[in-house]
């Protein structure tokens, strides 16, 4: 039944708004990308948690076989190159689709250059004006909103990649690199380009590349939740992809350039997944809160319409009239001017209210 005793908020003093950033650690083990559920009997590219599409433009990585309703979308993976890349030629496999993918990411994340409406080329540094460190052949990892939430927290992203041979990509001495955005923070180390928010540079932790001030190997777009990795990371791999062709080292497989031009997008994605170790970052959820201060004056809410409050019309908590009335608060209802109950707050234990005390209850609504 409707409540009839209200206390009106003073909108100047009883209401305030705050913004809070919540972060969660998102650890993605390499087995998810490289085929958790495949086992030895399932070949790379046929794992039940990897979804391929008939259009062949990208792959989706799930944390569980994707046909199950329990599966969660973790990230998408695709690759592409700019049409000015040396690997671009109309005769090559899915050449136009690879260019289209590159252009799609570029126009969304970077925008267009000058007046001739051509898309920008990715660079592994913070300045696009100098055209240095251009990445014309890249892999893209698009992390789902489910785990990224509002954005990737700056300075927390890292990915371990195997740059060794196909047979042993994480070779102990020559095969592993950790890329991270260690120079990025909420106040420095990032830049804006286009309309997709801020990005930071992924640096290698290897000794050859000093972390700060060193050259980068990729970008992480924080709000978009997209990581761009240069394919040149794997230039030194004798066999980037699987294959029967003998490479220059004599090992069976495809070197990077062979794979980029002769393998499909999904084939190259399979090769990259084979080389993904752990991925880790913190996501960010922005919570906007309105805080209502429910100030209960000493002279109000000291009685109750609870049916047990009286016995034979006599207030149970009193013996004589001069005894102070007492009530116990368990619930706060927030109403609009039409007496409609819009929000409810419950206390974990009753609070005693009588005319000798005033209570301020702080109710926070998160959006």
């Amino acid at each position, binding site marked *: 039944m409707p*409540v009839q005793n209200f206390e009106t908020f003073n909108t100047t003093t009883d209401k305030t708004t705050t913004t809070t950033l919540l972060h969660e650690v998102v650890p993605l083990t390499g087995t998810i990308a490289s085929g958790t559920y495949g086992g030895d009997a399932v070949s790379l590219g046929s794992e039940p948690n990897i979804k391929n599409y008939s259009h062949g433009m990208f792959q989706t990585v799930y944390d569980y076989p994707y046909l199950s309703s329990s599966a969660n979308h973790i990230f998408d993976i695709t690759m592409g190159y700019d049409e000015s890349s040396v690997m671009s030629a109309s005769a090559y496999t899915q050449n136009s689709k690879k260019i289209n993918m590159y252009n799609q990411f570029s126009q969304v994340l970077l925008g267009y250059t000058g007046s001739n409406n051509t898309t920008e080329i990715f660079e592994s540094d913070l300045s696009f004006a100098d055209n240095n460190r251009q990445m014309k052949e890249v892999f893209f990892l698009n992390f789902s909103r489910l785990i990224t939430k509002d954005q990737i927290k700056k300075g927390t992203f890292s990915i371990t990649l195997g740059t060794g041979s196909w047979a042993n990509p994480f070779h102990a001495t020559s095969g592993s690199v950790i890329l991270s955005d260690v120079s990025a923070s909420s106040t420095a180390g990032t830049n804006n380009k286009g309309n997709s928010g801020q990005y930071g540079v992924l640096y290698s932790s290897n000794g050859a590349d000093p972390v700060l001030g060193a050259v980068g190997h990729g970008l992480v777009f924080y709000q978009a939740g997209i990581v761009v990795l240069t394919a040149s990371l794997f230039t030194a791999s004798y066999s980037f992809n699987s294959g029967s062709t003998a490479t220059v080292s004599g090992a069976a497989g495809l070197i990077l350039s062979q794979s980029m031009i002769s393998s499909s997008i999904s084939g190259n994605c399979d090769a990259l997944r084979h080389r993904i170790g752990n991925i880790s970052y913190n996501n960010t959820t922005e919570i906007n809160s309105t805080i209502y201060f429910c100030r209960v004056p000493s002279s109000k809410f000291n009685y109750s319409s609870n049916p047990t409050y009286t016995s034979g019309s006599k207030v149970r908590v009193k013996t004589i009239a001069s005894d102070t009335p007492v009530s116990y608060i368990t619930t706060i209802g927030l109403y609009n001017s039409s007496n409609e109950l819009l929000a409810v707050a419950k*206390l974990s234990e009753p609070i005693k209210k009588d005319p000798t005390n005033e209570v301020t209850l702080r109710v926070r609504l998160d959006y």
Partner: protein
Amino acid sequence: MAFLDNSGDIILDAVLTDLGRKRMAQGNFKITKFALGDDEIDYTLYNKDHPSGSAYYDIEILQSPCFEAFTTDNANINYGLLSFTRTDLLYLPSLEANELVADSPLFKTSSVYYIAANNETGTALTTAFGDTKYWALSNSTSGRKIVIESGLDTSEITADSTNRSSYMLSTNLLDSKYSIYFDNRFISSVVTPTAASTFTNSSAGEDQVSFTMSSATATSTTFLEDYSAATAVGIDNTVYFYSNALVDRSTISVMAGPGGSATAVNATIDSGLTATKAASTNVKYTNYGTVGANLFGDGNTYDYIDTTLYIQGQSTSAMLQLPVRLIRRAS
């Protein structure tokens, strides 16, 4: 709903109600005021005789576990906390149904009040019950109605004019208006008293209760789904104790102490539910009630819907729930 963890610091669990989310979607979510409730509290646990002293009177109440918040609009604060300026109130009025007055009160039977959909049903009910006092005719302004009294139901205060003034009027505990809530799927309106009605007795103690009834205007509500509200006037309840009375006031009033006001209510059943037995059964009887029931072993069958009327005093928030059976003779 689970209980909230009450083992440590006091926490506050806040949620938007269904209506709050709806208003937010509509873009008119604006909180302007608050109210407090204590639905979980059982005040009978307040032990004024606790052997350890006054600090322990409410120890059991303070240990009451509280539920998580409900998102339904009407399940959170059924009985709100009240703000009365005076701190010396020892008695609060309650509402009770009255079957004592002479002016055709409706009697409850088998725990419900019967509202007959039509005269044909009423005639059958008279035969079944052996009396006309157990049913009221839908939308009737001259027949039986549920009579409700407010007042102090305590023998500690004599029901005289002085005490009524002291305990009811000067304390602002007089309900001069009542809100009546009813399910608008089955009841289209209610019949309530006009200000010309009286609820009093003579100095000789004779019953001078008289109701003049008319249809009330119904408005929809948002705090209880499918319910509408109407306002009923509260007539001064001046049935007093007179020491030389020939008729005891307890034969008129159900309140042992001073009365506050009184009102009455009859329901107007939705027109789709009032057809005689010649017509087929309305689907609402099938969906929400019982059809073709041989309720009384009188050779007749009946369709009926059980619902609840809520009566609430607008000054004191005192409330009374009335179980009502809307009944139609089916054969």
